[in-house]
């Protein structure tokens, strides 16, 4: 059997849900005729027609607003933001309206907003950001970021079937750099369930997205030194799987919180807060955060490389923490 890339897994996931449920449709800039800037919606116009595959004007706020309206009126929109960075243009619609509908009037908003983010592709300050935190911070929103092709397909399908607004963050660098064999039968991956991507005893790395792979690389190298690392892939960033976070910490008593996003106000702090409150007694060492520094994402290779967390840094800090 052939392997499926992350980008293709998402495409398949949406496609299958559109086959399964007539109320699912996609909308965004350049998604129909062009098939999307990253080709996620390629071929959908031909298969599902222009009522269900909709090119919009360059209007992020209207895309989100119209998606929310369509969701209120019985549809299940899958919206594309061309780059996650530009979701900022629809910020008010997302956080002030869509997120609050169930709370204010018990109105479900079964809407997915897909947004390709992340760096390592020389995208510079406007095409590389990790935008999860403002959405993680907004009650009423769910936020997802898959690290593998399997999860990408299973999570996009689960997100589409979910009755709450889901921000579905895709990592551009993973689109074509990871692939695996996928089941042929229909499957979903449940939201709000983290996944242990590697079992270990000595130290936990809690992370998500591209950094899962970087953590696994570091773990492999550390295994050679006799240090056993557990890698927890959060997969859903809101609502968080607090139980899995606490379990791995209770098991290993040491944790590194790793993300590609910048440090201050990043998810690492939130996870640290959960652990330092609810697993304090189990901790045998400080909680280390390994993240990008607090700057915009730089363009130039030398800077971007220095900016992004890498396996060397993880190995070094993990060694230190192991010996703590």
């Amino acid at each position, binding site marked *: 059997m052939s392997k499926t890339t992350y980008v293709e897994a998402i495409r398949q996931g949406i496609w299958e849900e559109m086959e399964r449920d007539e109320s699912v449709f996609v909308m965004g800039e350049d998604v129909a005729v062009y098939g999307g800037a990253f080709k996620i919606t390629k071929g959908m116009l031909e298969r599902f027609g222009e009522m269900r595959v909709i090119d919009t004007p360059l209007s992020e706020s209207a895309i989100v607003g*119209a998606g929310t*309206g369509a969701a*209120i009126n019985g549809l299940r929109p899958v919206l594309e933001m061309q780059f996650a960075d530009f979701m900022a243009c629809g910020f008010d619609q997302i956080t002030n309206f869509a997120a609050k509908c169930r709370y204010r009037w018990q109105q479900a908003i079964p809407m997915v907003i897909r947004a390709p983010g992340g760096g390592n592709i020389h995208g510079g300050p406007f095409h590389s950001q990790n935008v999860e935190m403002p959405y993680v911070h907004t009650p009423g929103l769910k936020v997802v970021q898959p690290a593998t092709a399997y999860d990408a397909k299973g999570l996009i399908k689960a997100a589409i079937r979910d009755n709450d607004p889901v921000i579905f963050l895709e990592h551009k660098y993973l689109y074509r750099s990871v692939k695996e064999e996928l089941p042929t039968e229909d499957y979903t991956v449940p939201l709000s369930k983290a996944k242990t991507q590697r079992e270990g005893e000595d130290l936990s790395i809690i992370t998500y997205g591209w950094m899962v792979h970087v953590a696994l690389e570091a773990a492999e190298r550390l295994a050679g030194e006799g240090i056993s690392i557990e890698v927890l892939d959060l997969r859903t960033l809101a609502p968080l799987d607090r139980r899995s976070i606490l379990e791995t910490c209770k098991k290993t008593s040491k944790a590194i919180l790793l993300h590609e996003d910048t440090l201050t106000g990043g998810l690492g702090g939130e996870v640290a807060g959960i652990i330092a409150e609810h697993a304090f007694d189990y901790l045998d060492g400080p909680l280390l955060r390994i993240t990008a520094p607090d700057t915009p994402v730089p363009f130039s290779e030398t800077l971007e490389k220095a900016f992004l967390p890498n396996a060397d840094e993880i190995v070094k800090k993990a060694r230190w923490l192991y010996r703590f």
Partner: protein
Amino acid sequence: MSAPVLAHLRTEFDRGLCHRFLYYMLMMRELEERIELKLYRQGKVVGGCYTGRGQEAIPVGSAVLSQPGDWLTPSHRDMAALLIRGITPREILAQYMGRATGLTKGRDGNMHMGCAERHCVPIISSIGASIPVAGGLALAMRYRGESNIVFNYSGDGASSRGDWHEGLNMAAVMDLPIVYLCNNNLFAYSTPLDKQMNVCDIVDRVAGYGIPAEIVDGNDVLAVYEASKRAVEHARSGKGPYFIECKTFRMSGHSAHDPADYVPNSLREEWSRKDPILMLQKYMVEELGADERDFVNVRKQVLSEIEEAVDWALEQPFPDPSTLEDDVYESI
């Protein structure tokens, strides 16, 4: 804007319809006065407190044309639209008083209410944000091949927001079945029109979207009704959106705490002579032979309904704090 022209020159309105208009306009007027001038001052209603005094003709003349399957997105000066959709004074008062039986279960306040069953989207406080949302509601109608339409309500101030532009443009490009009712009451909070735009009328802005638009006297319920009929027919028959600019005036402060010193007295006086309720009554007397006593009766009925509703609402429980975290997600 020309002097108000009563629609009787253009059509015959029967007594039944005019009575309906009168009932809803009076109900909105009296209910809001009760809320603002009594309940708010007594501290029974807290938070922001907006009224649509003087603008009642706009929601009434339009929302009466809505069908059950249609959706409405009223603004903060359109209480009558909710009434017409079957939302009761009891529900409205319980909402204003933050009670558990209010439409938002006490989670949101005042006019920030709506109801999925009766197809009213509660106000989105970010002014202008309802315009793209209306587009999505309409998109779903077209998607399923329905002949339903959306009634979107907003003010002049909203027309300066980016969302207004993006939403109108998208509706035009996609030919969505929406009737926009814009209440141009000459001010956005304290900001007069000439500081909001460099053209005379909101319809001048609308022209840029390729959406048909017209101006009506927003204090003349019959004129609003006639224009709405044209608009509804246009939208329902698949011809796309239609925009109505209703010239009117906010006969109150922006909200209960605003004395509106920035409004020239002459303007307030000019518009007080065009009270939409009095205009309707005049028409009913002169053209339909209505009797002033009829009006007294309608008013009586309205007031007794309000009395009953206030009593009921005051008895309603506040939300139980144990429900604090409910309804954020369907399930986690």
